[in-house]
């Protein structure tokens, strides 16, 4: 029995509150206490270490954070595409549409992949199979999830290529990936993801590998199809400018945990966690023209030598003794607004005041 199964059993026996599908029916995806570890030569990498978030039907969530903080691993865990070994989903629940994905059989999960949940990846250049035509690859996705003839599948492929704005889709279906540019390939991948009308689209840094003008087009496309089809969207990126224009809610990740969540405006205009403030600080803004961009001091801690307590504490300018204890995701103000920082604890008004001043200055600099 795997560690996950053991945890599931323990939970069921204890009747832990919070188990079971989400109460609110408009919640499409709810991830609870997700932990994904990699057992490698030097030890265990806790790539995702207790992540919780929700996405409503048709809703959009942005997941941001520095490289290596566990964004892709979270997405892969939702798709159950973690390679085992060395990876392992050690604990957690992933409620999707009333079912816990972690309890499904491989076959049930396979039907969900590409059907109810579709995913697009960071590398459009290499994410399409070079030896099959674009049409074959989209049709394959269609036929895996719907009982349609080859001809119908091909028509669907053409239709979805048209949806993502590729010119002459009838000709494109017969082309091979190498005949298309990077931007066009990403459109093909989006078309493939949308071909089965998924309820949730996971986009893992869909624009990172593209040049800036194409980036804007692809984002706009994702925005458009999301609005048109009503698909929920989980957008992973490390670019705050990207999420600001695309999603409603934002979750900031650091060292395998969510450190701050809330609506995009709230988080970006009123960051409650020094890490988020640091991220904002490092984007170029109007007021900062001519000045050096300030990067966050220090480096991401090694997965094998995590500091005690708050994982951001060694790099945090506001750090004090209390930070050596692990903070919870504390509610701040309104509901669904949370930050994992002792500054937000009830008794810390004095410290909070100095921090808020610094944060406000940062936001002013960025917004201009």
């Amino acid at each position, binding site marked *: 029995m795997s560690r996950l199964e053991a945890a599931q059993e323990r939970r069921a026996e204890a009747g832990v509150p919070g188990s079971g599908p989400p109460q609110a029916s408009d919640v499409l995806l709810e991830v609870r206490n997700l932990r994904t570890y990699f057992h490698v030569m030097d030890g265990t990498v806790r790539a995702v270490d207790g992540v919780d978030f929700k996405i409503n039907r048709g809703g959009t969530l942005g997941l941001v954070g520095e490289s290596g903080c566990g964004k892709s691993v979270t997405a892969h865990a939702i798709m159950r595409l973690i390679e085992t070994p060395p990876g392992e989903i050690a604990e957690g629940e992933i409620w999707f549409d009333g079912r816990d994905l972690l309890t499904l059989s491989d076959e049930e999960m396979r039907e969900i992949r590409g*059907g109810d949940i579709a995913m697009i990846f960071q*590398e459009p250049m*290499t994410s399409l199979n*070079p030896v099959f035509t674009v049409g074959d690859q989209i049709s394959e996705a269609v036929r895996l999830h719907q009982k349609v003839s080859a001809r119908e599948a091909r028509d669907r492929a053409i239709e979805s290529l048209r949806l993502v704005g590729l010119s002459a889709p009838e000709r494109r279906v017969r082309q091979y990936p190498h005949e298309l540019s990077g931007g066009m390939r990403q459109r093909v991948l989006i078309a493939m993801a949308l071909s089965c009308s998924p309820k949730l689209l996971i986009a893992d840094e869909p624009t990172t590998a593209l040049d800036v003008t194409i980036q804007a087009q692809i984002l706009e496309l994702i925005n458009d199809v999301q609005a048109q089809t009503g698909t929920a969207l989980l957008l992973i990126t490390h670019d705050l400018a990207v999420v600001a224009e695309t999603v409603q809610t934002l979750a900031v990740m650091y060292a395998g945990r969510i450190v701050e969540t809330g609506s995009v405006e709230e988080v970006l205009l009123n960051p409650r966690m020094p890490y988020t403030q640091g991220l904002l600080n490092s984007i170029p803004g109007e007021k900062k023209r001519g000045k050096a961009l300030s990067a966050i001091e220090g480096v991401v801690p090694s997965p094998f030598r995590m500091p005690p307590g708050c994982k951001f504490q060694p790099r945090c300018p506001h750090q004090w003794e209390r930070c050596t204890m692990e903070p919870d995701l504390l509610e701040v103000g309104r509901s669904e607004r949370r930050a994992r920082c002792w500054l937000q604890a009830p008794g810390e008004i004095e410290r909070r005041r100095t921090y808020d001043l610094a944060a406000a200055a940062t936001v002013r600099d960025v917004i201009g």
Partner: protein
Amino acid sequence: MIKYIIRRALQAIPVLLGISLVTYFILLIAPGGPTGRFAQNPNITAAQIEAFKRRWGLDQPIPIQYCRWLGVCGDKPFLINALPGGTFELAGLKIDLPGGDNGILHGDFGYSITDGRPVVDVIAERLPPTLILSGTAWVIWIIIAFLAGMYAAVRCYSLFDSALTIFNYVGFSLPTFWLGIVLIQLFSAPPLKWFPVGGMWTTRTVPPFGTERYWDFFWAQPFTALYDLGTHLVLPVVTLVVVNIAFDSRFVRASMLDALGQDFVKTARAKGVPERRVVFKHALRNAMLPVVTNIGLEIPFLFTGAVVTETIFSWPGMGREFINAVGHFDYPVLMGILLITSVFVVFANLLADVVYVIVDPRVKFD
């Protein structure tokens, strides 16, 4: 595609010419020479050796010898001789062609110094046994290499993978002659005596392979004939398979592993392709690309044969004939075999290139 093949075939001509030149001169500087076989024989006089040289044209200057061997020089004038020769019949009309009829350009590889037979006949006689032995071994080791390599890649670092690695390592390091002899010791010698010690047919029971009598026997008793051939094949085939499987199975494993780690495999999984199809369709098609080239380049082996294996198991094929020819300073046979080998290598390269274009849409004929 036809245009591409024709162009590549034309490009092969200078290559082959170069190869013929190189083989010719390498053999020339090798110690011994065509008269080397008389060196140890005290009964042969200098005059006899002179007569031998004159008879075989060895008294001519080297360039003339090469030129005659090629067929550019001969009875007809220089260069004209290279054109097609003999007579040609068209609608009852007999046309005398201007060219000569000697030299490899006219399909004349000369005569064996040892027994005076045309080299072409010698090769034609030795080729089928080699094709049978090498072909059987090749097919078997490719199939096993594929299955084992793929399985090892899908279950990489598993027990099977490690076992295969060890097997490959051992197989690759074993000297062929040693393995062959050990197999003979184990399975052909008493007490087991399961398989014949060597040869291709059981003398006295079965007529020599390739003769008319053999085929009469074959059609009269096909099962006996095949069984007899089969028992003679087992040990040499096993030897060849064990020794050669390592390279190909490592190659298949590596390309498969590479393909399985590619992003498009992740895409395929993410769109719900069943794992079996991920492996056999998406990854395998891509893993095939380098493998196809590699297999293509192994084709010449089918014709040239395995020198050591054929020698140990007294298999009457090209490889053993080559060793014989070396031992007897039989230069025309040596030259013939070397040149034919190069033709097959060039041809196999061309074939591999053509197949590559067919299986990989990214590569174009140009």
